[in-house]
C-alpha cells in the first residue's frame, strides 16, 4: 500500500499533503496534552512495530505481495492521535531511507495508513468492545475485526487515489501520465487482495498482541476506558 513517486499526479499528492498537515498539527496538539512522558517508550515500540511488521511481505502465490500495517494495534494502546504520529514516523523513515513509498506520496500514504486505518480501527474497536473489561475475550475479537476492516478501508482509499489518475491526467494520444489503471482495476485488485489475504494477517497480528498484553500487562490496555 506504499504508493511510490510518480503513481499520483501533483493534484492528488498536493491535496493529500494539504489534508495531512492539519491532521498532524492537531495530533501534535492533542498528544502534547494527553501523552505522559512515561508512555514515550511505548510510542517508540509502537512505531518500531509498525515499521517492522510492514517488512513481512506476505505472498499471494504467483501473484503480488502485501503486508500488515499495525496501525490499529498502536491506536488501541495509545489512542488514535498518538498512533497517527507513530505510524507517520514509520512511513517517513521508510520513504526517506528505503524508498518504500514515494516522497511526493508521503501525504497520501500517511492519509491511508496513519489516518484512515488508525481512526477506523480505533473507533470500531471501541464500538465492539463496548464497556467490556480490558481482559475480556470480546476485546480480542474486537481488535481482530477492527484490524481487518480498517486495513481494507485504507486499501480502498489507496485504490481511489490510484484509480482516479487516468481520469485526471491523460496525454493527447490517450496515454496516462501517472498510474494507468482506473477504478475498474484498482478497486477490485486492492480490495480483493486485502479482503482475501492481507486483512486476515492484520486481524491475527492485532488480536494476538492484544491477547498477549491482556495476560502480560492489562494496565496497558486501559486507553479510553473508564478508570
Amino acid at each position, binding site marked *: 500500500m506504499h504508493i511510490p*513517486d*510518480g503513481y499520483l*499526479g501533483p493534484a492528488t499528492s498536493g491535496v493529500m499533503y494539504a489534508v495531512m498537515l492539519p491532521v498532524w498539527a492537531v495530533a501534535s496538539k492533542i498528544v502534547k496534552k494527553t501523552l*505522559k512522558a512515561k508512555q514515550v517508550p511505548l510510542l517508540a515500540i509502537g512505531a518500531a512495530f509498525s*515499521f517492522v511488521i510492514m517488512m513481512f511481505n506476505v505472498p499471494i502465490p504467483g501473484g503480488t505481495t502485501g503486508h500488515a500495517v499495525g496501525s490499529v494495534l498502536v491506536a488501541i494502546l495509545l489512542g488514535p492521535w498518538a498512533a497517527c504520529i507513530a505510524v507517520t514516523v514509520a512511513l517517513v523513515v521508510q520513504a526517506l*531511507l528505503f524508498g518504500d513509498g514515494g516522497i511526493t506520496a508521503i501525504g497520501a500514504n500517511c492519509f491511508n495508513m496513519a489516518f484512515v486505518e488508525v481512526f477506523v480501527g480505533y473507533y470500531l474497536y471501541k464500538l465492539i468492545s463496548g464497556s467490556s473489561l480490558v481482559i475480556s475475550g470480546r476485546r480480542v475479537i474486537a481488535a481482530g475485526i477492527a484490524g481487518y476492516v480498517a486495513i481494507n478501508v485504507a486499501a480502498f482509499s489507496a485504490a481511489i487515489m490510484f484509480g482516479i489518475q487516468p481520469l485526471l491526467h491523460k496525454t493527447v494520444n490517450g496515454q496516462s501520465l501517472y498510474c494507468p489503471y482506473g477504478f475498474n482495476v484498482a478497486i477490485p*485488485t486492492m480490495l480483493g487482495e486485502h479482503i482475501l489475504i492481507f486483512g486476515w494477517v492484520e486481524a491475527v497480528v492485532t488480536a494476538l498482541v492484544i491477547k498477549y498484553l491482556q495476560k502480560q500487562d492489562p494496565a*496497558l490496555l486501559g486507553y479510553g476506558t473508564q478508570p
Partner: protein
Amino acid sequence: MKTTTKLWIGIGVLILLSPLGLILPAYFKAGDAWGEWGTDAFKELVGYIPKGLEKLSSLWSAPIPDYAFKGWEEKGLAGLSLAYIASAIIGILAVACIIFLIGKFLTKKD
C-alpha cells in the same frame, strides 16, 4: 521484567525473522505489491511507460533502496536477508530516535 523490555525483545525477534518477508515471496514466486512496480514493468503491463510517472519516479534516491545494499545483488537470498535485517535495525533505530525526540517536545512532565 518490565513489559516494555519484553516488547523490545519481541521487536528484536521480529527483526531476526524479517527475512521471511523476502524469502516467502521468492519461494512462492510472488512479485511486487500491486501499484508498486518499477518503471520498467510498465512496458510489459500497459505497453508504455507513463511520462509523468517516469519523471517523478527518479525524484528521490534512497540510501538503502528496497532494504538492500547496492552491489550485493550477486550475493543471492542470503546476502539480501542479511541486508534486510540490517535495514530493519537501522530503520527501527531511526524511528525510535525520532519518537524519543518528538516525545521530548510533546509530553507533559509528571
